[in-house]
């Protein structure tokens, strides 16, 4: 899954490409998958308070509101299938469909009793050229996480590949994400999320052209049926949108008889 965006076509290629990010789904993945016979519906709402202006052939991110609907169906106790609908709303363009992705994911079953949670996600899909020069992209995302006491750690060292677009020849992009959080109470968890894109693994971009973003974020654990996450992101590099406010609201729906 894209963390910060439909990437930026390799950061080192050109400045325009470096400004081509969108922020559609900003989330560090945990290793859990959605339970079988249940569906997770999430709405990702991201507002770029300070982004980049419109460029030739490319919409602005500044003051853009991105709404993404993510629907994930649990298949069995070790796999799920996710589907995304990306939209963008901004001055002069109104509400725009951006693209769709599909994301199958498998995990190491809990029954294997590994000391950490491990899963592997892969995501492929299309996004309109107006919002990303690379229209067809693919990503593979290993996910490792661990909950111990009040602490939670997750690492997503994702690799991305452009199938169609200006970056098709740039090879594989490295875009890790990390989360560390602490349970202040049963309902309130606070932490720091980190998202980055270092560019091609064979040609790491300069710091200036890397994407780096830090999100102090909170998770509200009000019910096992609901998932609520809120954060404010700071992007210190020039290739990153500088201020982003993100929110995720998710709801579990159970279908049929649940496994006891």
């Amino acid at each position, binding site marked *: 899954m894209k963390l910060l965006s439909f990437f930026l076509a390799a950061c080192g290629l050109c400045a325009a490409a470096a400004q081509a990010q969108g922020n559609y789904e900003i989330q560090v993945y945990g290793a859990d998958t959605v339970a079988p016979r249940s569906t997770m519906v999430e709405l990702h709402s991201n507002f770029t308070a300070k982004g980049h202006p419109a460029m030739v052939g490319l919409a602005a991110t500044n003051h853009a509101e991105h709404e993404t609907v993510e629907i994930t169906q649990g298949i069995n106790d070790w796999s799920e299938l996710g589907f995304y609908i990306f939209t963008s709303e901004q001055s002069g363009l109104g509400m725009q469909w951006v693209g769709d992705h599909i994301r199958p994911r498998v995990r190491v079953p809990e029954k294997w009793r590994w000391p950490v949670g491990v899963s592997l996600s892969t995501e492929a899909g299309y996004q309109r050229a107006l919002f990303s020069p690379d229209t067809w992209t693919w990503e593979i995302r290993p996910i490792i996480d661990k*909950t*111990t006491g009040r602490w939670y750690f997750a690492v997503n060292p994702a690799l991305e590949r452009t199938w169609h677009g200006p970056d098709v020849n740039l090879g594989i992009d490295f875009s890790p994400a990390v989360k560390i959080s602490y*349970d202040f109470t049963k309902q309130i968890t606070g932490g720091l999320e980190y998202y980055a894109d270092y560019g091609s693994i064979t040609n790491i971009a300069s710091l200036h052209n890397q994407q780096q973003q830090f999100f102090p974020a909170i998770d509200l654990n009000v019910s*096992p049926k609901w998932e609520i996450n809120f954060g404010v992101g700071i992007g210190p590099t020039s290739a990153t949108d500088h201020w982003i406010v993100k929110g995720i609201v998710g709801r579990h729906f159970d279908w049929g008889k649940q496994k006891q």
Partner: protein
Amino acid sequence: MEPTIQVRPEDSVCGRTTSRRAFLTAAPLAAGALWARSSFARAQTVPGASPPLVEPGVKPDYTLEISEIEWELAPKKKIRTAAYNGQIPGPLLRVTEGKQVSIEIGNRLDREEIVHWHGQWIPVEADGAMEEGSPMIPAGGSLLVGFTPRPAGLHWYHTHAMAQRDLKRGLYSGQFGILQVAPASGDPGRYDQEQFIVLHDWEPYYTASDDGSMMVSYVCGSVNGKMLGHGEPIRVREGERVLFQILNASATEPHWLALPGHKFQVLAMDGAPVATQATVETLRLGPAERITAVVTMDAPGVWVLGEAQKAFRDAGMGTVIEYAGRTGKPHEPDAGKLMWDYRVFGDATPVVHRPDVTIPLVFTSRFKGHGALDEWMINGKSWPDADPIIVHEGLRHRLVFDNRSMDDHPVHLHRHNFELVSIRGAATGGVHKDVVIVEAGTKVEVDLVASNPGNTLFHCHQQDHMDMGFMTLFRYA
């Protein structure tokens, strides 16, 4: 009207409070008196151990050896665990009510162990709970335990060692077995065959629970130490009455048991005859609960006696019932609606007793993180800081189990049993138990007539809850 004393948890009923330090100092003295009076036990290999109360050379009636074994749950499923006498469950111990028995326990593990005689009204030294003052069995050592079994019925023995975060210890292991106490008057025997059914869950692991904390789940389960399809079937004949003696020896899981096409007539719970021998399609047993039920075999075929919930049955919890001359794929239970009400087995018109003392016991939890087990409290305190509950010999104590948590709790009182008086506010009577499930957010009231002096442990029989503080001592005034 007789006065009812409302006891505040931090006070004793006689107006005297006892500090934990004073209590710990006094406990061995009380234990010693009991020791001399009615039990015998000695740590044979512990220097400075109490003098033997069994004449040298006395041969024990039974011998248990605790050791690490490899056990085959199924041909492709072997586990390593601690067990008694190299088998799971441990050997069936048949004893007679009122006839003294001696059991020598050898501990071949590299850690201390202790064996609890669950459901027996016996002295502290023999009971097998270190919190009461029973001796531990040292690593590599042994202990000779003697007691006079009572009451009659289906009881059991099991490790009472704490597991804490080690999911190989305590009741997560294979240290459990049946103790069948025959009535002194003899077994009426209105059945054609007797079958013992022992449920257990294996290969535990921590997982996230719906309420936000960690819980224990299992990879597989067994009946009598074998996964479904891998043990010998129970062979029956049409028209036979089969007496099932069923024990849930799981460390943490309640289980629902069903035999499709048949019904269970419940005769006793936790070894005690019930007031109404009601007939039900499904049995619920919390950890440590026992049910004695008779089934008339009147539906020829091949059936699975197993967990009503498919997930548990798929994990191995079941056994095959095979009628003579019948073959084929066994019919499995359908979970249907899982309903259980202890009151079905109670008196239709319960006798109302007025308690001498009412003792509220409030169960709550404290969140310790999404990656941790909750800490459990009785009246606001966790073991070992919990205040002892003071009881008076001969008095009727109304214990009000007030479960304000989001989990069910199978609470157990050592060395006594109690009578169910109300469930969720609805009156009952005539059901005597030593374990009762108090469902989340509900109250259960029971009457305890204190009749077996000595420290008495009260705890949730869910191993992870007990390990996380859900224990306190009842102490005789």
